[in-house]
């Protein structure tokens, strides 16, 4: 199950974003009653989740549904606000030393765990110790590698010392804080996954408390009346686990759920009738995922940059977005999302131009000598296998359009669909591929050292295509080792220029997130990060309450 679009995207990593991130939110239905009304408490909000959650302690998990639920239960010291700037959450304020090596947090004093124990600096130190404990099975320990020490100066002051300046230092403290008084013994043994709090009664500091989790069926949360930022208006959240997107859609029609994510087809073609538009508001924002065509640069044919540039010219991205996503995606010119501070729009573009593509290939020595429509060099025809993961309709369409586009310029593509686990293990990790359709989930921070740096090419590392460019290496190193944003901007602007010229992969598009929420829910303010960031302020006017809520 769980595997359609997500299969291609893998597991999105949206720490502290509660499952949403985005740019240029355009509410399609501004008129549908998002107007002013006095917020009231009560009612239940029912959201459809596509996959079962795998646990309740997010620090040791990796799947999107778990993060979405955990985002309501836990807080970090900092979080991203609606414009993707870091602001304090459990931390009231923080201060960097001038050399970027010392970071001091002042914590809020009115924060309680769900069991009414006060939240203090000891919990912060505990969470850090847990994340860096080599026995903890967490995918995010690497964020704290540059830390030299973390100390509780007093119960409400935490001092962090870094070994070297680290651009992502502040962001790493958006990690979910864990309660020391409950989890210490499990964390020491590296057994957080086995802790009972991973299965029931998790204790966090967040706006909602855990009520119940019926595996594969639903997760129920209730409002935390003692939340430090004020009690949330909606009293209960029910996450219903519905694997099939067709079923989710019918549940929307029958008003069995209040919020869900639509597919492009549903968004564009099946929800435009008046009754649906009256009952729901649709939203659209660029999600943190982009789809790309990766080529193995160890292959002599793809090592030639002109070949990659030719492919970029041969693929009509606009047509691709129209055909695959019905227009619900944004062209990617590089690895950053348009609209973010790190995005650089002034890079080399590759407009659709098959003539230019053919010319570039000819320059690289690929000619159609016998006029049979297939390019050859030294008598060898240009053909390769394009791999993609099974179960993704989107991936298949992308592959087919690319196949047709490349055929136009005389390159033969065989499409091979392979189950995800096998694709990863047998082809991608062994670097045993020619070309592949994949997606990258990106973080709000621009550091992408692990993907582009030439040192990151061993089987388990992420520079899968084998990209190596000394200038890129240097930019990545500089970009991650300063805490001055203006400097970082310079490095990442240049990085995008180089990547655009090099086209180590053909950047295709950023997919749009397409959430839909019942129109009885008010207080939603779409913003670049998505819609979920201010969930605590959502409410239902009294006359529209639908459910009893405890």
């Amino acid at each position: 199950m769980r595997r359609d679009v997500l299969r291609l995207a893998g597991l999105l990593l949206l720490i502290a974003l509660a499952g949403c991130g985005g740019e240029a939110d355009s509410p399609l239905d501004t008129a549908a009653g998002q107007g002013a009304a006095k917020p009231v408490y009560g009612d239940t909000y029912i959201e459809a989740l596509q996959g079962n959650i795998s646990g309740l302690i997010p620090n040791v998990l990796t799947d999107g549904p778990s993060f979405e639920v955990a985002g309501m239960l836990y807080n970090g010291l900092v979080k991203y606000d609606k414009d993707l700037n870091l602001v304090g959450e459990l931390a009231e304020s923080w201060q960097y030393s001038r050399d970027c090596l010392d970071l001091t947090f002042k914590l809020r004093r009115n924060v309680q765990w769900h069991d009414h124990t006060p939240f203090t600096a000891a919990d912060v130190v505990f969470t850090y110790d847990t994340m860096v404990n080599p026995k903890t099975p967490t995918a995010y320990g690497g964020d704290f590698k540059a830390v030299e020490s973390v100390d509780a100066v007093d119960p409400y002051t935490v001092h962090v010392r870094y070994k070297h300046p680290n651009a992502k230092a502040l962001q790493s403290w958006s990690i979910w804080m864990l309660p020391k008084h409950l989890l210490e013994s499990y964390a020491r043994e590296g057994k957080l996954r086995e802790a009972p709090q991973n299965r029931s009664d998790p204790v966090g500091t967040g706006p909602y408390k855990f009520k119940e989790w019926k595996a594969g069926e639903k997760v129920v949360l209730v409002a935390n009346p003692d939340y430090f930022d004020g009690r949330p208006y909606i009293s209960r959240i029910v996450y219903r686990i519905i694997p099939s997107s067709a079923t989710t859609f019918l549940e929307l029609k029958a008003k069995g759920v209040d919020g869900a994510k639509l597919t492009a087809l549903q968004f564009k073609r099946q929800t435009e009738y008046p009754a649906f538009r009256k009952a729901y508001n649709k939203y659209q924002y660029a999600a943190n995922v982009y789809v790309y065509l990766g080529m193995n640069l160890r292959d002599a044919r793809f090592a030639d940059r002109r070949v990659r540039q030719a492919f970029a010219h041969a693929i009509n991205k606009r047509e691709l977005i129209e055909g695959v996503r019905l227009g619900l995606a944004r062209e990617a010119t590089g690895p950053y999302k348009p609209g973010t501070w790190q995005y650089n729009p002034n890079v080399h573009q590759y407009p659709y131009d098959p003539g230019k593509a053919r010319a570039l290939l000819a320059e690289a020595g690929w000619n159609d000598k016998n006029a049979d429509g297939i390019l050859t060099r030294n008598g060898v025809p240009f053909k390769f296998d394009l791999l993609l993961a099974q179960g993704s309709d989107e991936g298949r369409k992308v592959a087919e359009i690319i196949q047709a586009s490349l055929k136009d310029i005389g390159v033969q593509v065989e499409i091979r669909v392979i189950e995800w686990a096998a694709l990863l293990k047998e082809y991608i990790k062994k670097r045993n591929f020619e070309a592949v359709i994949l997606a990258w989930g990106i973080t709000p921070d621009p550091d992408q050292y692990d993907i582009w740096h030439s040192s990151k090419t061993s089987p388990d590392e992420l520079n899968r295509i084998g990209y190596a460019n000394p200038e890129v290496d240097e930019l990545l190193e500089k970009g991650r080792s300063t805490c001055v944003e203006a400097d970082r901007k310079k490095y990442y602007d240049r990085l995008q220029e180089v990547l655009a010229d090099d086209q180590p992969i053909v950047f295709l598009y950023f997919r749009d997130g397409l959430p839909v929420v019942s129109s009885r829910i008010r207080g939603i303010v779409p913003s670049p990060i998505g819609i979920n960031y201010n969930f605590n302020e959502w409410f239902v006017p009294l006359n529209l309450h639908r459910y009893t809520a405890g």
Partner: protein
Amino acid sequence: MLGYALRRLILAIPLLVGITFVSFLVIHLAPGEPTDMQSDESSTRSDAKVRQLLVETYGLDKPLHVQYWNWVKRLVRLDFGRSFSPDARPVLQKIAERLPITLLLNIVELAIIVMLAIPIGVLSATRQYSTFDKITTVFVFVGFATPDFWLALMLMILFGVQLGWLPISGLRSPTWEYLAFWRQQWDFVGHLVLPILVATFGGLAGFSRYMRQSMLEVVRQDYIQSARAKGLSEGVVIGKHALRNALLPIVTVLGLSLPGLIGGSVIVESIFAIPGMGQLMVQAVFERDYPVIMGNLVIVATLTLVANLIADLTYSLVDPRIRVAARRGRR
């Protein structure tokens, strides 16, 4: 009789060992590893160290025969191990929380199928080529040809969206906690109607065909002729003499469908969002969750062997010829 059953049971042990060994081998040979599925492979933040840690935790670095031996050692103490999925829960617990709903659905479904298929089969056999027979034949072909998921969606649109009579998916309404006791039961039953309807439709087609075929063969037999010649009423001839014999093959088919009772239907469960065994298994396979896959396999294999045994024993109970043959064979 008892000796025969015992012998069969003892023989089943090496068979079970063989089945688990081959399954263990095949699952581990399948490309992809559980650790790959847990280290966030499509994110820019994947961390290779976690993978190493998990490999050691799960003992995946040991040779395959050692892994198998460790697994068997635990199994004889009825310890199925813990799931590799990040919830790290005991396999038996995971299966136990999913089993009741799957069993309930399948037993009800099987009961309905048997109750409907037998009369339909008998009627269409005794009235061969009648209008009734022709209608059921058409029905059977439609039943075979209709994809589960399509039928499910159509029924959901009709009863859930258009008419609003039945809930679309899940097991309970969101307001379930606030309902009175009998209303809760009613709500639960309402949620089961569509899934059972869909699951029954396909099964009914096959079963009624078996019954018809079996009945057709029996009514041609000489002893039916002589029963009629004795002057017995048609009801007694069909209902007693013919039906009993015609049910024999059905016993086998029923016996073989016993293990299927715990393996939920993936399609029906996914479409109706029912958290049953089918979903658990498919997810385990995608995640390469070896302990869960093996745990489920052991249970299914055991049940299959037991069901075979029961079917054979029942056979000898209902059919005297087999009893006699078994006794002669032993001499």
